[in-house]
């Protein structure tokens, strides 16, 4: 197996997915914020809320275009670059992707056009419903994608079929209600809501600092702070829930995030700070907070959390068991229906560890011929590099608490200080705009890098998942994506900044004209024949 192609394919996936996720969180959150603003407009009939809807809706549209465009890459890249993964787990993993298209993506994409083009063709309430359908569609998309991703973290409801040489679904509802997927879904959409809230807050703060669009900016801050505060609490709590579910499903990831090399007696302490040392297998200068890790990870004071070294020993045992599964599988694969029942039983007894035998494929074609040193090496491979996980996680959490504090402060000002915001706080809000993106990317890094060396935890190693492509092919597409995405990013940022600088002036004029037109149209409709306005 060519190792270079694995690294290059991983790099391409990382680049394209992290780029995609620059746009997704804003889409998730801004779709809802815009729908909330339009709801207020429909309820109060005050034109300023329509101006807000139009203005933030325009920024939403610029962002949405790239989110959709870069999402297509993700949908196709599994087959292009990870064809063995696609074959091996497509029976389970493909279903949520297809369901996303059926249930969610069609909804948001069909109605997003009407959101922008339908102002003159729909009644107010119908247009509001369209705005909510876009928001619901976007958020449902996230649900299905996270069910797919959650299954890669915690592969439930499936088993290996020797006849087809792949994993097959045994229980759809286990896949659907996977606890990891559910916790990740709420955590991720909450992160999107925080992102959009920080974005709206920051841009509005910039207007206030320049004394522009005061009314619109104040109201926007109020909506963003209220929504952002609730979301920031949710993102931290559900992050904690993810940690709890990782205790059952991904012990190695949890131990690596913690820099916990040896199993500690329960309840384990939380390492707030330190320098993990992979070579020496210890964390230097660690500052421990007693009990906290045990409580987060197990919700009890008596259950212990295994450390990295204990997990490595368990992996070695499972590799040896996986070799037995592999040996029996070779027999069953050859003989098919005529397989010796004893061999079939032997395979079934060890099939849960088959993936661990595949870890050896990096070193030897036939895992049965692995030397003891190779087995030790493969067990060692199950330990991810600790320091990037350790630090990414801590920065993300610190930012999370920062969002709670900021949102709470602005919410307090909006509620009790008559929407008067002190200038230093406004400056902070502007500088904070990139923070949620950093937190979100770091969060995904922890989730995905922490899963290595697996694509599907305990089932399929990353090294085995790639397509049989040449380095040249992947290098061409990687270079293509990087150039292409950089150009698009520059264009996107240019347009965003242009429209933010321009501000909602156009929307003010347009709204005045539209309100007059709309009133006339509604009045006219009562007299004209019903077919003139088929939409209403």
């Amino acid at each position: 197996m060519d190792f270079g192609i694995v690294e290059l394919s991983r790099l391409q996936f990382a680049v394209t997915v992290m780029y995609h996720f620059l746009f997704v969180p804003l889409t998730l959150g801004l779709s809802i914020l815009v729908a909330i603003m339009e709801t207020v407009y429909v309820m109060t009939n005050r034109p300023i809320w329509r101006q807000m809807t139009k203005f933030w809706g325009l920024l939403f549209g610029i962002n949405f275009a790239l989110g959709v465009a870069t999402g297509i890459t993700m949908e196709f890249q599994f087959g292009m670059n990870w064809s063995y993964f696609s074959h091996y787990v497509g029976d389970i993993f493909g279903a949520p992707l297809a369901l996303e298209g059926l249930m969610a993506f069609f909804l948001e994409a069909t109605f997003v056009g009407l959101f922008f083009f339908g102002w003159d063709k729909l009644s107010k309430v119908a247009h509001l419903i369209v705005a909510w359908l876009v928001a619901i569609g976007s958020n449902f998309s996230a649900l299905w994608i996270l069910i797919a991703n959650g299954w890669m973290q915690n592969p439930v409801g499936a088993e290996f079929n020797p006849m087809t040489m792949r994993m097959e679904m045994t229980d759809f509802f286990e896949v659907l209600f996977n606890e990891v997927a559910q916790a990740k879904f709420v955590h991720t959409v909450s992160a999107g809501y925080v992102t959009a809230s920080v974005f709206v807050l920051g841009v509005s703060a910039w207007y206030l600092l320049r004394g522009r669009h005061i009314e619109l900016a104040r109201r926007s801050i109020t909506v963003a702070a209220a929504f952002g505060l609730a979301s920031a609490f949710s993102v931290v709590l559900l992050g904690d829930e993810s940690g709890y579910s990782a205790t059952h499903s991904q012990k190695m990831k949890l131990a690596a995030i913690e820099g916990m090399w040896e199993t500690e007696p329960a309840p384990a302490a939380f390492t707030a700070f330190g320098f993990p040392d992979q070579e020496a297998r210890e964390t230097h200068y660690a500052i421990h907070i007693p009990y906290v890790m045990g409580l987060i990870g197990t919700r009890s004071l008596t259950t212990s959390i295994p450390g990295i070294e204990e997990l490595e020993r368990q992996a070695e045992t499972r590799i040896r068991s996986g070799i037995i599964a592999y040996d029996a599988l070779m027999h069953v694969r050859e003989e098919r229906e005529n397989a010796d029942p004893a061999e079939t039983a032997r395979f079934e007894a060890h099939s849960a560890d088959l993936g661990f035998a595949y870890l050896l494929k990096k070193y030897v074609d036939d895992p049965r011929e692995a030397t003891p040193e190779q087995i030790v090496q493969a067990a060692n491979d199950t330990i991810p590099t600790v320091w990037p996980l350790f630090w990414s996680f801590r920065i993300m959490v610190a930012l999370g608490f920062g969002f709670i504090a900021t949102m709470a402060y602005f919410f307090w000002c909006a509620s009790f200080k008559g929407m008067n915001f002190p200038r230093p706080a406004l400056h902070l809000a502007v500088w904070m705009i990139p923070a949620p993106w950093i937190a979100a990317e770091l969060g995904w890094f922890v989730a995905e890098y922490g899963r290595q060396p697996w694509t599907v935890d305990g089932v399929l190693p990353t090294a085995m998942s790639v397509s049989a492509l040449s380095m040249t092919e992947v290098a061409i597409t990687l270079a293509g994506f990087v150039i292409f995405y950089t150009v698009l990013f520059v264009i996107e940022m240019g347009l965003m900044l242009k429209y933010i600088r321009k501000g909602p002036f156009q929307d003010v004029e347009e709204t005045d004209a539209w309100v007059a037109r709309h009133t006339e149209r509604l009045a006219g409709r009562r007299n004209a024949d019903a077919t003139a306005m088929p939409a209403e």
Partner: protein
Amino acid sequence: MILHTLIDYEVLRVIWWGLLGVLLIGFAMTDGFDMGVGALLPFVAKTDAERRVAINTVGPVWEGNQVWFILGGGAIFAAWPPLYAVSFSGFYLAMFVILAAFIVRPVAFKYRSKRDDVRWRTSWDWALFASGAIPALLFGVAVGNVIQGVPFHFTDDLHTIYEGAWYTKFIGLLDPFSLLAGVVSLSMLVMHGGAWLTLKAEGNVRDRARRFGSIAALVAVAAYALAGVWMAVGIDGYRIVGDYVTGGPSNPLHFEVEKTASWLTSYSDRPWIAIAPVLGILGGLLTFLGLRAGREISTLLVSKMAILGVISSVGLTMFPFIMPSSSDPRSSLTVWNSSSSHLTLFVMLVATVIFLPLILVYTAWVYKVLWGKVTEDDVTDNSHSVY
């Protein structure tokens, strides 16, 4: 869960083979006219106002239309994982070109009219042209390759291996027959785009769309007929030999396959499938006449009929093959050995039966809301909110 055994595995496979066709045809009928309008853009619209009219005829709907493409990818992944794994990695660089087009297109739609600069707008117009014409051509090229068989084989572990170096894998796709198939799909979608523009635009744009659309219709019919003749005399077919089960595990290596003289023997085995090519040719000719006569609504319908006929004729001719292997026929993917498991096919069918009709209903509603011509006045009046 035992509910899924209510429907036989082989029946589910045939249903999902049909649904694969429904998705491809749905994609070609909806996003097809978006691509066609893109490919026609430099020919039908000369001034900026005309270009904006042409773009805004698809402005509110292209986004939803494009989901047919994404759903097609997702459905192939879910229902035919080996097909997804083999075809997407096998056509690697061609897929990248298509992806690039599908990434540029949304951005071009959204961003084109957001600046007044002439160079900015002209660049995006060319991007719209390329992102319409190139995928329209490449989809046909891919089908041409599938008809002839693709050089790949499976290892015992079902890893896919492709024969040949990376450049032959890419340039090799562009053989004469596949290019002809590319001409069929490009001209068919241009014809469809012409029919759409005739319905949604007025004046110069409409007149030019009628002219170029009717030329495309004739090219499509001629190229399609030529491809049929070529398949009769010069292209190998494939067939499964020996005993095989239609409801067994999805493992291509459990089958034996050999090449035959021509695919067209399926027309003597199943004469009724001749209805598909007849619909294709008849639809193309009627679209030509409709465009000439200026019959707007019925022209769009017969153009859809042509698409239905052409795409389904490929599937029906090759059945039960989905993607034959030219270098190792045993590795060929067929309806009987490259689907998902019984349970997954069932679960996905239940979801499709519920959601596909819903999608069709709300898509139809959106088209109804947007019914009517797009005029230059519309575009200038709403300069800020339209493309």
